[in-house]
């Protein structure tokens, strides 16, 4: 039933680059926790974990995936931050009939053009981000927008999704500037954003780019002068890096916040102890736990590690853990779960380390994610 007498899970993530804080080592720890919580064995067979660094490069990711499938008897690859790496792994997985579980990567092609019967997208995506933050901001009166967009696929994708939401809600896009990726000095772009007179400056970027943009917006008095920033993809690690003083008041959309209920707090505390550095998990960390656990449940139910069969089982089983309440997987591989609109606390509101968010609204999954009817995935029957 299980090939080679075991189930082997590979966590392929960015261990050394820009995203190694929001994903990285923490996702390996999360995956291990999932295995441990599952009991370490599946139908009496051992579960193994292996991990590697893809450095956010498609070629490295694809090389490692191929090697894992060919020589390491890996059955499933999890995490996969960065869209390019995720797509690269998806190509290999599809060819080999193995399962890939995407947590960190953001872009929607993963469940559209690039969808696969054995590929899943778990934690969030650009559609949900655009939808969550864009909607909320426009409804709060932010009608005119200017985008600072990272000049690569993910940035373009995020901007395009958000523009759609803004326009659908009667807003207006005054302009956009594509900045090189990565980029450290945003003052010039911010000045252009300021000159546009837009009420909202949408940051269609991530990680260090977003952090620097926010920091410098404050430095140049952009926010004081009345314009507002909308970070379209902000992780809790980014807020930590910025400090509340700078980040306060910002609206953002997230798939998970550690301080929502007892379950999330308990898991996060365990994770934090394992990491041993006092940090709290990002949504990518939590999502990785959830996806690995769900895979194991499905593999146990299917009594096999054969990709297609487990994938079918995964689609059948509902997801109910601290991360996703009543989550479900659609034909296009999207795991649909509730998203949260959060606002960053003022320093005075924060009661302790990592107490950063106020959850403003829970966005029900079906509302948060792209409707299946709009999907271009070939697996979706219309």
């Amino acid at each position, binding site marked *: 039933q299980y090939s080679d007498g075991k189930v082997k899970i590979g966590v392929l993530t960015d261990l*050394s*680059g*820009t*995203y*190694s*804080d*929001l994903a990285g080592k923490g996702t390996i720890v999360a995956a291990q926790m999932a295995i441990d919580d599952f009991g370490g064995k599946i139908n009496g067979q051992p579960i193994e974990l292996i991990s590697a660094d893809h450095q956010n490069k498609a070629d490295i990711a694809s090389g490692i995936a191929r090697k894992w499938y060919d020589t390491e008897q890996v059955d499933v690859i999890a995490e996969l931050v960065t869209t390019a790496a995720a797509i690269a792994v998806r190509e290999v997985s599809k060819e080999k009939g193995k399962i890939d579980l995407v947590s960190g990567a953001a872009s929607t092609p993963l469940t559209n053009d690039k969808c696969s019967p054995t590929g899943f997208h778990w934690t969030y995506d650009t559609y949900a981000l655009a939808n969550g933050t864009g909607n909320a901001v426009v409804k709060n009166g932010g009608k005119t927008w200017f985008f600072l967009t990272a*000049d690569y696929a993910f940035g373009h994708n995020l901007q395009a999704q958000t523009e759609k939401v803004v326009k659908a809600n009667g807003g207006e896009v005054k302009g956009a*500037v*594509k*900045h*090189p990726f*990565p*980029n*450290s*000095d945003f*003052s*010039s*772009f911010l*000045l*252009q954003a300021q*000159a546009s007179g837009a009420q909202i400056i949408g940051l269609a970027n991530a*990680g*260090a780019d977003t*952090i*620097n943009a926010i*920091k*410098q917006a404050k*430095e*140049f*008095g952009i926010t004081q*002068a009345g314009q507002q920033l909308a970070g379209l993809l902000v992780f809790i*690690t*980014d807020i*930590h*890096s*910025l*400090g509340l003083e*700078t980040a306060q008041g910002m609206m953002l959309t997230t798939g998970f916040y550690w301080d929502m209920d007892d379950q999330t707090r308990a898991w996060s505390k365990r994770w934090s102890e394992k990491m041993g550095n006092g940090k709290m998990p990002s949504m990518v960390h939590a999502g990785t736990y959830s996806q690995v656990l769900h895979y194991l449940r499905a593999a146990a139910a299917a009594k096999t590690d054969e990709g297609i069969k487990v994938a079918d089982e995964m689609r059948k089983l509902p997801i109910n853990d601290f991360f996703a309440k009543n989550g479900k997987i659609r034909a296009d591989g999207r795991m649909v779960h509730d998203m949260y609109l959060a606002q960053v606390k003022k320093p005075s509101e924060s009661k302790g380390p990592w107490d950063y968010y106020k959850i403003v609204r829970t966005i029900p999954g079906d509302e948060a994610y792209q409707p299946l009817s709009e999907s271009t995935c070939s697996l979706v029957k219309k």
Partner: protein
Amino acid sequence: MMTILGIPTQALFGQLLLGLINGAFYAMLSLGLALIFGLLNIINFSHGALYMMGAFVAWLALNFLGLGYWGALIAAPLVVAVIGIIIERTMLCRLYKLDHLYGLLLTFGLALIIEGLFREGYGVSGQPYAVPPALAGGWNLGFMFLPIYRGWVVVASLVLCLGTWYAIEKTKLGAYLRAGTENPTLVQAFGINVPLMITLTYGFGVALAAIAGVLAAPIYQVSPKMGSDLIIVVFAVVVIGGMGSIMGSILTGYMLGIVEGLTKVFYPEAASTVIFMVMVVVLLIKPAGLFGKGA
């Protein structure tokens, strides 16, 4: 309102000023690099890493020793200079007789090690570093809001660059440095302690990088990657200015900051590439760089 190429002149002023501010960092870094290349004939690939180290020393000093910005401005270059001197004495000094490829390779390796260690220790997201209270706030210049701190960066870098230039060009030191590059044995046979001079120059060159790092800390995040993103551009600056020309690398630093700033307005996607375009054009027209000597 007046406009140039569709951009209001006022806004253009703002962009020029911002370009100049970025140029200040290029100038400081390329100055150190040019110095080190000029004397040691070593393309110091670890320059970016040592710049980052300067910023980190400031951050560490603040968080673990309570030493503030002004103290860091003195302490960080000293610490980094000492590290630089150790690197020079233990490793680089074995390479002078060899092709400068080996220096490049060694310092590249060192850059990987330094950057890797800081990544391992402090993650990649970067640490916040506040603007010193004395320099907080900003001036409204009419066409833009200029943070006082950025103004200070430009002034500090100008003072530092011109001071260094003066010390090197207007004293015999510059001649020793240049001659020492060409034929260290002979210069030493004239009675000059070339190894000491080399060591101190390396120390000074990386100290400049460290100062730039401290100056950068409040503007950008203090992050292990801050150096490697910059280094290749700074190389280009040095080459465009003319290898070995101190003034050339300073002026080119400011100038390219401005060029890059303008590109961010007219063709933002190309902002990180424009310097290389300039480099191709310059080298084809003036093979030794803008301020380089010789044909």
